[in-house]
């Protein structure tokens, strides 16, 4: 005590805020899968309307698979399946999680019908309506999760609330593009390759903007687990989009490699943003200094 120079910017260096109690894999996965599902539904609807059956089927099956897995991740995080029922107890516009639950209650069945009719070939009319419905709800599914995490006191999440939805939809587009490039015939996957470029550009620009707005808190994007994940995300996303766009049309292998890189990049982005939030809550500096400024 006598010789050290105490820094009283916090109570013995303890955090001011509570870090999110969510499991990174469950909720990081939930964010990634929601984006993959939402943007896949949009790509599927576009493919359906432009007569690209292979790309459409891939998108529909991916959307159902991803949204089911994301619901499973959410229920796993809640601990007991019966607790999910409480999510539909009320409708609360001030709670993005409440709004999100209702959104998923509408989107999930639409994505399910779209996938089921695509796989079985039954009821094509109903299938088309469900495909378009899911395609219209998809962007909301891909973007509401940005509001979900921004509507907290976590400095790295709240501070970036303006750019976060653009990062998320960009990342959603790259994930869906990656899956389309992996699963569909390169002859049909032109939109997926272009979606990869679009998503990568949107995500990169929005991420840059977000960091400049975060100021001191942007440090959390460069250090620790978050730093590694976000660095990997950038390389995978830009690399995957470039490989897909340049080589994906001629080579099935290149399309698969680019697609896998885009999917991995999107997952890294979500996990990296998750961990940046945790870091920003755990160090009181990121709470106190911006509030003092």
């Amino acid at each position, binding site marked *: *005590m*006598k010789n050290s120079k*105490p820094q*009283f910017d*916090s*109570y*013995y260096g*303890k955090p*001011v*805020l*509570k870090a999110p*109690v*969510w499991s990174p894999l469950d909720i990081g996965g939930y964010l990634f899968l929601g984006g993959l599902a939402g*943007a896949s539904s*949009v790509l599927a609807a*576009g493919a359906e309307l432009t007569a690209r059956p292979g790309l459409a089927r891939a998108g529909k099956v991916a959307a159902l698979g991803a949204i089911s897995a994301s619901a499973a991740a959410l229920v796993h*995080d*809640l*601990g*007991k399946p019966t*607790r*999910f029922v*409480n*999510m539909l*107890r009320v409708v609360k516009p*001030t*709670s*993005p*999680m*409440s709004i999100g*639950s209702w959104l998923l209650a509408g989107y999930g069945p639409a994505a399910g019908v779209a996938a089921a009719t695509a796989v079985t070939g039954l009821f094509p009319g109903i299938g088309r309506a469900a495909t378009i419905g899911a395609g*219209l709800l998809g*962007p909301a599914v*891909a*973007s509401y999760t*940005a*509001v979900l995490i921004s*509507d*907290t*006191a976590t400095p790295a999440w709240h501070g970036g*609330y303006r750019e976060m*939805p*653009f990062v998320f*939809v960009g990342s*959603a*587009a790259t994930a869906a593009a990656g899956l389309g490039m992996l699963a569909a015939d390169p002859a049909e996957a*032109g*939109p997926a390759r*272009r*979606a990869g470029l*679009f*998503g990568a550009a*949107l995500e990169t620009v929005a991420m840059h903007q977000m960091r400049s707005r975060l100021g001191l808190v942007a440090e959390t994007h460069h250090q620790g687990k978050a730093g590694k994940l976000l660095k990997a995300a950038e390389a995978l996303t830009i690399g995957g989009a470039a490989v897909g766009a340049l080589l994906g*049309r001629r080579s099935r292998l290149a399309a698969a490699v680019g697609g896998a890189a885009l999917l991995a990049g999107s997952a890294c982005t979500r996990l990296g943003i998750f961990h940046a*939030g945790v870091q920003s*809550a755990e160090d009181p500096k990121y*709470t*106190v200094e911006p*509030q*003092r400024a």
Partner: protein
Amino acid sequence: MGFFTDTSVCIGCKACEVACKEWNAVPEDGLNFSGNSFDNTGGLSADTWRHVAFIEKPVEKPAEGVQAVDLGMPTVGQSTPDFQWLMSSDVCKHCTHAACLDVCPTGALFRTEYGTVVVQEDVCNGCGYCVPACPFGVIDQRENDGRVFKCTMCYDRLGAGQEPACAKTCPTDSIQFGELEELRERAAQRVEQLHADGFEKARLYGENPDDGVGGAGAFFLLLDEPEVYGLPPDPVVTTRDLPSMWRHAGVAAATLLIGLAATFLGGRR
């Protein structure tokens, strides 16, 4: 109704922590000395609803004209200690604009007829959204349960016309319970008195209804900067920006829809 915690008379006895645990049957969470101070609870959590902070800091010189009184205490070698204690009993702030209540997707958190914020244990589904939403880091998830818990301001005692257990047991009246208006008046007088006595850094925290959380239902008289006590200097309810967040998300969603639609232009390639 609310709390006014006057930390200038807190003696760090932790009777409030014990009374809270006893009355509310809050589970034991270990006696974990941090090695930093005599504080054995560390901070507010699902199982610590009142927390007395022990802040050891170097002695400050008394203000001009104030004479330190020699209490004649026994000493070892040194005539005056080189550090002093600040003690403060922290608690849920029961914010007027409460982020935890706003973000709760199930309605498990609600505002009582006393203006306080309470969790309904049987409705909470353990989503944990309120935990990072709280700008004070108060509410927390109980391990092995998954649901969240925090101070209820002894909702059950208020219903029976009694004051909360912590205020009842506080031997120095550091924790005072009552109508917020009346408490604010009393607090303002106390700050004036402390300033007159030379404690220039004495200030109120959370008493202003125009602050970022609309004023706290539990406010404090502090003898130093809020962050010294582990409190945020300028907390703002996160949902203040929610309309703007939804607008940005709407524009982003439209960008995604239009951007992906555009990828289908340009022919069959």
